[in-house]
């Protein structure tokens, strides 16, 4: 029988040294920002019931979830997302807590990706959920400015935060006399910016102002000019209101000092039954997919019997870590300051001396060799600049 005891499962990997340092650096920076804004950390279970992620607006595809059963034969999945468990938590144990709730998380999510395409099945995500709030505009603004700040920490010059509003698409598509299947097809083609196929499909639906507007929708991305274009293409009271508010948010973010790094895409139309308002995505130049995703989801908590608005975002920590490693922004792997070697009979004293140095803030390695010469050679190979020999007295050798 073939044994799989030397490799890790497809889509997973061991993280060593500098990879770990980069990841922790990202996690710590993000946690620092989140805590600074008064967010408290929560941890949800790695496994949850399958039902949590299926039905209503929570349609995770079953083929993409890792599944197992519990002792009663109930279907369990490895958490594919953190927002939904947190919505559950906020609607149960925190149901009567004073609003708003400011929660953050830093945990792995699991997705069974198609094999051999170079995507991870296990990724660490860090993010916030801002639940409740009398004035949801203020909440949107808080979440967006935190998203921008988070990205700017890792690549201030070259990050990109892109905002949109799911309402623009929803309002337009609701005016079409087509069934849900066609609506979904239109949505998919817009999200893939598949201009030719979208045109063909909408030509079949009919030629009017709405189909014309939907045809333009995937092209409505870029800078401030998008608002004008969008208003030219279609106007009614609701859409004008949506565009007005979005433009206000856009301008405010620019005023925060993020000029040139904030853009608009009205063609962000993923998870349309989940998001209810503003949606946003973040990009870094060295990562081929978005590293940050977020938006307003005012219906999700209601599905858990706790009707309450919410906004949040999640950041793919692994992707950000890879980015800072590539652009040289990750902290360096630190070698020890000294090797401490105890002569025969002074083994315990050597460890005690090492402890003293550690307390003083140095990084030291305790030598496991039998001679000072071997210890010295070891220190030289590892690039450690000092050898400390503990015997009757303590000798320090600069290498």
């Amino acid at each position, binding site marked *: 029988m073939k044994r799989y005891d030397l490799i890790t499962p497809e889509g997973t990997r061991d993280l060593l040294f500098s990879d770990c340092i980069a990841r922790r650096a990202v996690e710590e920076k993000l946690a620092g920002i989140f805590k600074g804004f008064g967010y408290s950390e929560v941890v949800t279970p790695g496994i949850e019931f399958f039902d949590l992620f299926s039905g209503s607006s929570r349609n995770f595809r079953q083929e993409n979830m890792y599944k197992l059963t519990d002792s009663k034969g109930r279907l369990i999945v490895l958490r594919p997302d953190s927002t939904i468990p947190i919505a559950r938590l906020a609607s149960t144990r925190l149901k009567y807590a004073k609003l708003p709730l400011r929660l953050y998380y830093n945990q792995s999510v699991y997705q069974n990706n198609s094999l051999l395409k170079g995507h991870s099945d296990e990724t660490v995500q860090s993010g916030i959920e801002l639940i409740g709030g009398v004035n949801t505009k203020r909440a949107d603004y808080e979440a967006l400015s935190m998203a921008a700040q988070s990205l700017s920490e890792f690549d201030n010059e070259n990050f990109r935060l892109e905002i949109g509003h799911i309402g623009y698409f929803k309002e337009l598509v609701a005016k079409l006399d087509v069934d849900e299947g066609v609506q979904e097809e239109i949505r998919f083609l817009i999200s893939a910016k*598949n201009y030719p196929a979208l045109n063909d499909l909408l030509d079949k639906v009919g030629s009017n102002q709405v189909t014309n507007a939907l045809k333009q929708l995937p092209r409505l991305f870029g800078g401030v000019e998008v608002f004008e274009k969008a208003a030219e293409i279609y106007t009614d009271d609701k859409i004008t209101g949506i565009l007005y508010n979005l433009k206000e948010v856009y301008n405010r973010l620019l005023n925060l000092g993020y000029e040139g790094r904030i853009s608009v895409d009205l063609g962000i139309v993923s998870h349309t039954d989940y998001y209810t308002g503003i949606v946003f995505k973040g*990009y870094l130049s060295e990562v*081929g997919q*978005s590293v940050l995703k977020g938006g307003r989801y005012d219906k999700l908590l209601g599905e858990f019997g706790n009707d309450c608005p919410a906004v949040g975002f999640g950041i793919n920590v692994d992707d950000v870590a890879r980015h800072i490693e590539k652009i040289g922004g990750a902290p360096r792997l630190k070698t020890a300051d000294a090797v401490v070697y105890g002569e025969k009979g002074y083994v315990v004293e050597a460890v005690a001396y090492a402890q003293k140095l550690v307390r003083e803030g140095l990084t030291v390695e305790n030598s496991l060799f039998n001679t000072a010469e071997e210890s010295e050679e070891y220190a030289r190979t590892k690039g450690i600049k000092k050898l400390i020999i503990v015997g009757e007295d303590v000798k320090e050798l600069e290498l």
Partner: protein
Amino acid sequence: MNKPLRIALTKGRLEKDTVGLLEKIGYDCTAVREKGRKLILPVPDGNLEVVLAKANDVITYVEHGVCDIGVVGKDTIMEMQGKFFELCDLGFGRCRFALAAKKGSKFYGGYNVKTIATKYPNITRNYFESKGMDVEIVKIEGSVELAPLLELADGIVDIVETGTTLKENGLEVIEDIVPVSARLIVNMVSMKLRQQEIESFVELVEKAL
């Protein structure tokens, strides 16, 4: 100057057609035409860099963002799927997917589960799923037409251009599945971070079509 836009071309016929298109736009593609064994080639006056790859790899490279743009057949896109923007139909490389079987055989007759040979198992699965029909799919790497002749399969799902190969081997098209042609795809992040360069490139391409 900015780093060049990297464009991945599917080796073979699509590559020739795309190079033709680039030349029509006015780019100097000498380096690509005289490529030898090189796989990454400059198109200096367009600030482009051409990468030559197999169809499936074009999608992988674009999806990961190591190439900004790709030219690949709709057949490969349907089979591989993936996340990227599909901006235009280039119009060349036209053919179609079809279901074919031995001439005179009644493919939909009888109650036995049909066996289908194909190079495109995902497309085949989706097609028969949409019909609510259970089939057994056998993946074949080379000439798929052989499978029904050797009686391994009842039918095949494959790309048909003229239908000559089918005819010469005593097969006929039962039904067309979907038309196919070359597409221009773009990485989702490149599209946003290099919007102007990509949009003006796409504009040039669309004008030259």
